[in-house]
């Protein structure tokens, strides 16, 4: 008799149980954080490449540049560069953000460097051996001998 007189509480109880069931279903079916954050994770790659001093000339213009000039890898990839200097002047490769610096590479020299690209960003590499004609160090376009490593997520 008492219960028949107060149906409101039982209606509220029933509604809240339905709400709880719906909430549990929603909570269990929420998408994992990794999938919502971005593309599917891929296994880290090993990027092995030659990096050479390339020389260009034409119409009285001479240019010495790192080839390739742009490297693109993902965060966590291992970068393995065989850095070679086939030019007739000495050069030196430096990628400061990852603490990479070869010894002075005289004509014909090469050096292999390996590192893990463990941070995201755009990082410049360049020749770190200043132009010194008496020592046959680098060339007048020393400041233009630069390239970029782009590390993406």
């Amino acid at each position, binding site marked *: 008799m008492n219960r028949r007189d107060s149906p409101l509480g039982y209606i509220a109880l029933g509604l809240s149980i339905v709400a709880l069931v719906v909430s549990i279903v929603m909570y269990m079916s929420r998408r994992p954080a990794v999938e919502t954050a971005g593309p599917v994770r891929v296994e880290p790659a090993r990027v092995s490449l030659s990096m050479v001093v390339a020389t260009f000339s*034409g119409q009285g213009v001479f240019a010495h540049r790192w080839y390739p000039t742009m490297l693109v890898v993902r965060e966590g990839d291992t970068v393995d560069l065989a850095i070679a200097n086939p030019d007739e002047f000495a050069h030196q490769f430096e990628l400061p953000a990852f603490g990479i610096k070869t010894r002075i590479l005289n004509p014909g020299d090469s050096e292999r460097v390996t590192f893990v690209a463990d941070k995201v960003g755009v990082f410049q590499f360049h020749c770190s051996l200043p132009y010194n004609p008496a020592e046959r160090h680098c060339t007048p376009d020393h400041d233009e001998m630069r390239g970029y490593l782009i590390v993406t997520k």
Partner: protein
Amino acid sequence: MRVSASGSSAIAAALIAGAALLLSVLSLPSVGRAPAPSAGAEPATITLDLLITGLGAAGGPATHHYYHPSMIVARRGDRLRIRFMNMTFASHGIEFEGYNVRTGVLPGGPRGQEVVEFVADRPGVFRFKCYVPYEPAAGMCSPDHDTQIGYLVVLDAPR
């Protein structure tokens, strides 16, 4: 007696509704999962020379022209400062499709240099190419005009 029966079921309803509310809030995609700020998030400035150069048979004139580098990669929002240098015999002018950026007509040699600067604010793959038609009498471009193409790739990757 009547009051306590409806009161106890109301308290139970309130507790269950509270639990449902908590689970609902936890199910929201953003709660507790804000992306961690990364060191490379700042836009970068990419300063590069872009050589217009060519190759031919040994001792002969250049017959095939290309750019160094032939592909420029940037992230969305990075600033590009590119100096074109024309090292070929003929004049060339370069435009970036999709960005409304172009150089003037550049003669071959030390005078044929120009810096263009812009923000790579549109993601995608865009061609850069010579817009000066081949006109041998005027020393404009070269027979391989149609294949003097390079690419700008603007990544929309998360930082």
